[in-house]
């Protein structure tokens, strides 16, 4: 159990990247996804002071910083591994976003990155909740991001992934606290990895605690590893508006089902 104090997604960013990352040296190395995710973290925490007040930063990504990974692979192929520019290699690391967030406020707190495909965000959420539960942290920033590139899209197209689904990308961050505050929007009561898929009826039977709550299964065709983080953000908004409970069920191409249960305060 933990409380949600804020949520920000790539869809509701209000600060210019130069405001988010005033250090030009940091900024000029950032790829689009790193900027997008860092801006979402900034938005969620309310800025540098909010980041400085965090006790833990937990990020998640299914495929990481793909543009930089592809750039570096392409360089290796073109040059035979000689005279390579280090910047895309450095920036391709999965914990780049978490590290950039820490650098913004020189925050030396716990900094973790989960890369478990469509369960990355849920892994980060679990880590955050356990830290809050154990009392190691009082304010934890958890977030997820994934980037869509033409190469990744094309390779997955060749694998047949887009016959029934559409590709997507995004960045979502949420600020979690152990105790409810005046700003709390909702609470997370459960995060679970399921061993097999569940129907809507099964989700309701197993997870619903009240009759007027909702069960959300993937409602549209968009699929990417951290897609469930955006569903989470949308559900938080609905709970804040008055829906008493939402069971957010997610699958990734019919596999690796997870459940997040959100409740109103």
């Amino acid at each position: 159990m933990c409380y949600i104090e804020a949520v920000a997604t790539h869809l509701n960013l209000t600060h210019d990247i130069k405001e988010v990352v005033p250090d030009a040296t940091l900024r000029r190395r950032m790829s689009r996804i790193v900027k997008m995710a860092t801006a979402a973290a900034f938005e969620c925490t309310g800025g540098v002071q909010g980041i400085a007040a965090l006790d833990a930063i937990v990020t998640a990504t299914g495929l990481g910083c793909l543009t930089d990974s592809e750039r570096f692979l392409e360089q290796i192929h073109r040059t035979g591994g000689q005279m390579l520019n280090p910047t895309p290699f450095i920036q391709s690391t999965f914990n780049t976003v978490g590290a950039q967030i820490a650098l913004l406020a020189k925050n030396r707190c716990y900094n973790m990155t989960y890369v478990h495909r469509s369960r990355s965000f849920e892994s980060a959420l679990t880590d955050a909740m356990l830290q809050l539960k154990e009392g190691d942290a009082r304010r934890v920033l958890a977030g997820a991001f994934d980037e869509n590139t033409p190469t990744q899209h094309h390779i997955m197209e060749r694998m047949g992934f887009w016959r029934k689904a559409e590709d997507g990308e995004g960045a979502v961050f949420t600020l979690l606290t152990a105790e409810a505050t005046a700003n709390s929007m909702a609470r997370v009561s459960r995060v679970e990895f399921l061993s097999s898929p569940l129907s809507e009826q099964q989700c309701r039977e197993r997870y619903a605690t009240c009759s007027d709550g909702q069960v959300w299964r993937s409602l549209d065709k968009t699929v990417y590893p951290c897609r469930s983080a955006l569903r989470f953000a949308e559900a938080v908004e609905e709970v804040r508006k008055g829906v008493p409970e939402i069971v957010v069920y997610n699958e990734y191409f019919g596999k690796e089902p997870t459940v997040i249960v959100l409740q109103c305060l």
Partner: protein
Amino acid sequence: MKIAVSGIGIVSCLGIGMEANRAAISRQESGIVPKSRFLSAPSAFPVGEVPFCNADLALRAGLGERCLYSRTALLGILAVQEALADSGEGKDLRTGLVSGTSVGGMDRTEVFYADYLSDPAHGRLRDVAMHDCAASTLAIARHCGIEGYTTTISTACSSAANAILAAARLIRCGIADRVVAGGTDVLSLFTLGGFGSLMILDKKPCRPFDADRAGLNLGEGAGYIVLQREDTLQKEPYAYFAGGENANDAYHQTASSATGEGCYKAMHDTLRKAGVAASQIDYVNAHGTGTLNNDLSESRALCRLFGDKVPPFSSTKGFTGHTLAAAGGIEAVFSVEALRRGVIYPNLNFFRPMEETGLVPVTESREAPLRYVLSNSLGFGGNCTALLFSKN
């Protein structure tokens, strides 16, 4: 709640399994070779390469030799099999897996990519099917019959150490009874090119903590330990997990701060939380990659924490090379072995202390009754983790 270490498993350039690794180390024999045998393109740098091709690894893991798993998954499976067998059956236990990796299936992806770049219709899809980091973890879990909480961590060179931290938390919070935790990473053109572009690869065998050190040697391997709630043990454990903390250097995307802020904080917070005094630490398995920056930064952190009483310490990377996301797992295995057998593994290729700190690591295998061992893992993004293991 006490968390015990009930099993260990390791694959490195020294060999497959703890026995092979122990035997090589006791002979002071490094596993680092001048040239890779299995990389898809030549490299001018020495490497710590596991001396078996993928087909051999697959056969040894009980898979068909035509198995399509990435090398990352194969090394991971071999180490996890050993660790689980060592830990005991555990039929009624909820067993989880937390695995760290930084390259995932990159060794196969780069083969695919070479063809793909020449023509986007080319490249065998099975070569890129295990690209993402989770793929190796899921293959390990499937093949080793692990059905509990499973996840993957990637924080560069501290990944496996962080996997161990996460595993301990899962046990403390009642999500699992025992968790196999560590990491697996393989040599790839991507990482060789990457560390080469940073100009921190040594053309000679690496010399951790030496005044004339000139960089690291990349290695590959897998190292896992089994953490288990004490009341579920089926055997005498090797050691106990006494604590661990992660901290961020928050200094630079790749370089460590000159004062080792993050490393100091990780070690300091670990001791404080565990209620263990700095004077009780009997051995530190240092990160000690052999780069100018890392070893100075880490040395300064050691001096800050321990003052003029820095305990015996060594980097074992002269034996294994720097195995990136696996390093924290392999070194956790060595730390547990140190406690179990009362022996400190030496630091190879050390001749002269650096002027800035004058620190001298342990250079010969030394027997000593050890109670507390600290293991450091430091990664890109300022990611610093210290793990503390105890005899009792």
